[in-house]
Every structure is written in C-alpha cells, then in structure tokens.
C-alpha cells in the first residue's frame, strides 16, 4: 500500500442499535475492521442512525475512527425507506470501500435493497471475511443451508457490501481508538416514507434471540411435553443462554417458531450450543454448522447428532439437564 498516494476509502460498519444500545455484532464487525485496517491503513467508521444515541456513541467510540451520527426521531424504529435514502446519499458522498452490517432482521431487510440502489456487490449472511493487501474482501458464506460453502470475491466499483453472522469475529477486548463524531443531518424526505411501524410485540422473557445469544441450549421432541421445557429454561437462566428447539416441537405447537433452529427456522452461530434429546435430523444440524462448540446429549448412542458434536453424553436428558444446571450454578458461583 503506497501511503500518501491514494489512501483507500473507509470501512463502514452499520451500527445497529436497540433501545440506545449498540448490538454486539457491531462491535464484532468493528473489531474485524480494525484488524483489516492494520493491513490497508483504512479508516474505520461506524454509521449510527437513530435518536438519543449518547450511550451508543460511548459504546462505539473506542472501536472506530469516525462515527457518522444521523440523529433524528423519525429514524426510530427502523424502516428501510428512510435508512436507505439516508445511507445511500452518505455513501455517494464519501464513497466508502466497504460497508458491512449484521445478518440481522434489519441487515437482511436493508442491505439487498441498498446494494441494488447503489448498483454494487453484496454478499449476504457471511460466516467469514478476510481482507487482501489490495483492500479487496473475500467473503465466506454457506449455501444450501450449510451443505457447502462459497468463497466470494467482489468485482467492479462501489462499496463491497456484506452482512455477517453473529460470533464470526471476536470483540476486541482492548479497543484503543477514539472516534471523531461527525453529525450528519439525515435526508428526511416525507415523500419517501411509505411504511409506518404501528406496533411492536416484545417476545416473552428477557432472553436474547437465538441468533444473537452466545449460548443456546435446545431440546426436541425428546422432552415429551411442552411444560418440560421448564428444565431447559432453568439451565438457560444459569448460564445466560437462550432456548432453541427443533421443527417437530414447533409443528406440535409446543414452542414458538422464532426459537426453531434449522433449515426452515434459523441458523445460529453460538459460541456454545447444547442439544438435548435431539436426534440430529439434517434440517436441524445444518442450522448449527457454524456454532463454535457443540454438546450433544441423547439416550440413543447412534443418534446422528453425535456426528456433529464436540462433546457427547449418552444419557437421559431428564437426568442430565437438572444436574448440569446445578453443577454450572455451583462452579459459576465460586468465581
């Protein structure tokens, strides 16, 4: 990289926030961007849209060189209409070379449309990104629900866009930047506002979505009755995990669709996934392919799930789960 000749443009991260708090995926992406920038000398910027974002700015500051702050009440809650026009005009002005976001409900709603608008390349739902010396990204993403992976390269002008799954990168625990906050007045053209959010039903319980949680514990039909999920909730509470499940229990109406892991549900990328009484149907295991550590407990020693696990126990979940909860409580309380 020749310094002073043509400094490559910035790396932008869409800093999605919720209730004024920046999502963890944003810090993961900023941490990765800082690593990339060490190769290329690019600046790392966070793109923060919303209102009342003091805490978010504070969260972001050590992770970025710049924060583009678009503060306007109409940007909360998210709709693609305003986000698209605001971000697009900013991109056209500053021409970042990279624009990344989390593979979240917002990212998946906004990024494809934004990429079409900007006539640029976009790789969705990445499980890996690497940076070349030339500032070109290589993105890794699963296809066919995770049966194969593809390494994707960008060509052409325009920012390289991607959405990335949770836990693809680690959050830098010693962030050392101090961001300069650049306030931008968002392009709010009432004519472009088409959709309005009229309400929000918060999911019961305070747990994170299974796609966002670091630890997910799950049970399938092997748990026998919907009320037995209580032991799973207890285990989850002990280790700050979320509770996932299989298609069968959702089809039975025992659990909510939002907690379904696998092909017709959600792909999760937890640091730790623990499956109890789940046989390991292909639909399910494809959804856990990018989890870092997998534990399987099933009473059938030949259950397929063991082929996809790091640690396995042959046993009865009704015996193991409560004991595991107690053991975890014990060791965590002595810290």
């Amino acid at each position, binding site marked *: 990289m020749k310094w002073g000749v043509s400094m490559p443009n910035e790396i932008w991260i869409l800093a999605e926030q919720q209730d004024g708090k920046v999502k963890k995926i944003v810090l993961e992406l900023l941490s990765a961007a800082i690593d990339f920038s060490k190769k290329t000398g690019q600046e790392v910027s966070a793109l923060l849209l919303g209102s009342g974002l003091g805490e978010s700015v504070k969260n972001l500051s050590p992770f970025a060189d710049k924060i583009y702050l678009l503060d306007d009440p109409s940007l909360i809650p998210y709709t693609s209409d305003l986000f698209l026009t605001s971000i697009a005009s900013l991109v056209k002005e500053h021409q970042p070379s990279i624009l990344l976001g989390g593979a979240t409900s917002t990212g998946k709603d906004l990024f494809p*449309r934004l990429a079409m608008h900007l006539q640029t390349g976009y790789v969705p739902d990445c499980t890996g990104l690497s940076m070349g010396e030339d500032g070109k990204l290589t993105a890794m993403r699963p296809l066919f629900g995770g049966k194969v992976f593809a390494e994707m390269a960008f060509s052409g002008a325009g920012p390289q866009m991607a959405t990335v799954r949770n836990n693809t990168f680690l959050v830098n625990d010693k962030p050392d930047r101090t961001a300069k906050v650049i306030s931008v007045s968002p392009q709010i053209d009432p004519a472009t506002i088409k959709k309005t959010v009229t309400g929000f039903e918060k999911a019961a319980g305070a747990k994170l979505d299974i796609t966002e949680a670091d630890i997910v514990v799950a049970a399938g039909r092997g748990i026998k009755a919907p009320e037995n999920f209580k032991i799973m909730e207890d285990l989850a509470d002990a280790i700050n995990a979320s509770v996932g499940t299989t298609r069968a229990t959702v089809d039975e109406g025992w659990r909510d669709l939002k907690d379904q892991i696998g092909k017709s549900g959600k792909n999760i990328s937890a640091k730790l996934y623990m499956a109890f009484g789940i046989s390991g149907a292909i639909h399910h295991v494809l959804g856990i392919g990018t989890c870092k550590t997998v534990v399987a407990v099933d009473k059938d020693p030949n259950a397929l799930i063991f082929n996809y696990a790091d640690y396995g126990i042959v046993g009865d979940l009704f015996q193991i789960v409560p004991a595991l909860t107690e053991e975890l409580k014990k060791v965590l309380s002595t810290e």
Partner: protein
Amino acid sequence: MEIYVLVKQVPDPEAIVKVKSDLELEIENKYFTSFFDEIAVEAGLKLKEKFGGKVTVLTVDNRKVDALRRGISMGADDAVQIADPALEGSDQFAIARTLSAYLKDKPFDLILTGRQAMDDDAGIVGPAVAECLGIPHVHSIIGLEVDDQKREAKVVREVENGKEHLMCPLPALFTCQKGLNTPRIPLVMNVMKAMKTQIKKIDLASLGLSQEDVGSQAVRVKVQRYLPPPKRPSVKMIKEDFPDNVKTLVKLLREEAKVI
C-alpha cells in the same frame, strides 16, 4: 387483486450437495419448490379467495418449470417462465432486474416471494425487485392483512426480540416467512390441470433487456471457490457414569473449550 408470486425450483432439502471442483457443485437430482415460495403462493391464493382477482406465478429459469406447475396446482391462475440462454450465470441482482423488467408495466397490487430461496439462501431478489420497481417492501413477514379499499396492508415482520407491526401502502412487495400460513396440498384435479398447462415463455429481447444486463458478465460478486463445510474434530464421548459425566462436561467446557 392482481398478485404476482416469484417462485423458484431448488434442490430438495434432502438432496446431497457436494463440491465437485473449485467452481463446480454436484447436486443430486431431487428438486422441489422452495418452501418459502410456497408460503408466498398460499398467501396470494388466500387474498384472491377474499378479494377476487388473479394470482400469477413467475420464475426465471432456463430449464425447470416445476415451481410454476406447483403454483398452478395449488390454485394460481397463470404461469410465466422467463428463459434465455444469456441468463446463464446471472447473479441475484440480474434476476431481480429481469423480473422487474417483466413486472414494470403489469397492473400489480402485490408481489410476494419467499424470504429466501432454499439453494443460495441469499434473500436478495425480493428486496432488489422492490427497489427496481420503486415500491416499498417488507422482508420476512409472518402476518398479512390487506385492506383493498384503502389499498394498504398490515404486515407483521419477525425481528430479533419480537414482532413488528407495520402499515404499508400497496402496491408493495413482501417476502414470506414460515408462520405466515401453511401451504395447501394441491388437489389432484389441479395437479392434472397443472400438468397440462401451457407455460408462457418470455425471452430477454421481449423484455427490452440485452445480454450485458444479465449473465456472468454482469455479476459484481463471484464465486472464487466452493468448499465443503468446515469439519468438526470427531466427537469426544464422555463415558463416565452419571453424575460424573456432568461434572466432566462442565470441566471440559470451562478448561478445554473455554466457552463458559
């Protein structure tokens, strides 16, 4: 209501997909209509049953028309296949441009499609078509109510920590998620009809598109190589008796995997 549903025939979820070479996949010859697209067809049919009108299924595929036949067998009125040799190697954006070129002068009230196709799992085409047509979109809906007098739709979108309710004027495009409905199983009578239906075939020239707009030369992202899924080291079975196995597991998770 005039409803268009964008559908795609994809390898069955049970089909074996393997990497053949860096740039080639080996896909078992087992196909079905992408599950989320069936949900979209069902949503369209329900609206037609309520308000009258027409449901047209639309696909861009040079070879397979089964998704269209599936749509007809479920109850769609019309099927259109866009096919052209120049489309080979197109990315999702080129597919979106192609679909938009067909749709732009059609009198649609609503365009529906799956939240993603079950092969590339990209979820690009829906929102990108909405962008080309300049209509609003909502991704991954699990609820839909239409007021055809006011020409607006109430939709429910699945988000990380709950469900978001939105109002959206029509025409609009929605991508459909499991939970919106249960797609119907076709009646044999309609299956027979679908088998006999003449499928309209449209090429690029009639859409006013040229070869440069689509195909492999128009892609902005390309596959460098395919890889098998990363292999997990083989499982470590904890063979002690209960409750020692639980203690060992916790120890391993803390000291070896370092995840708790």
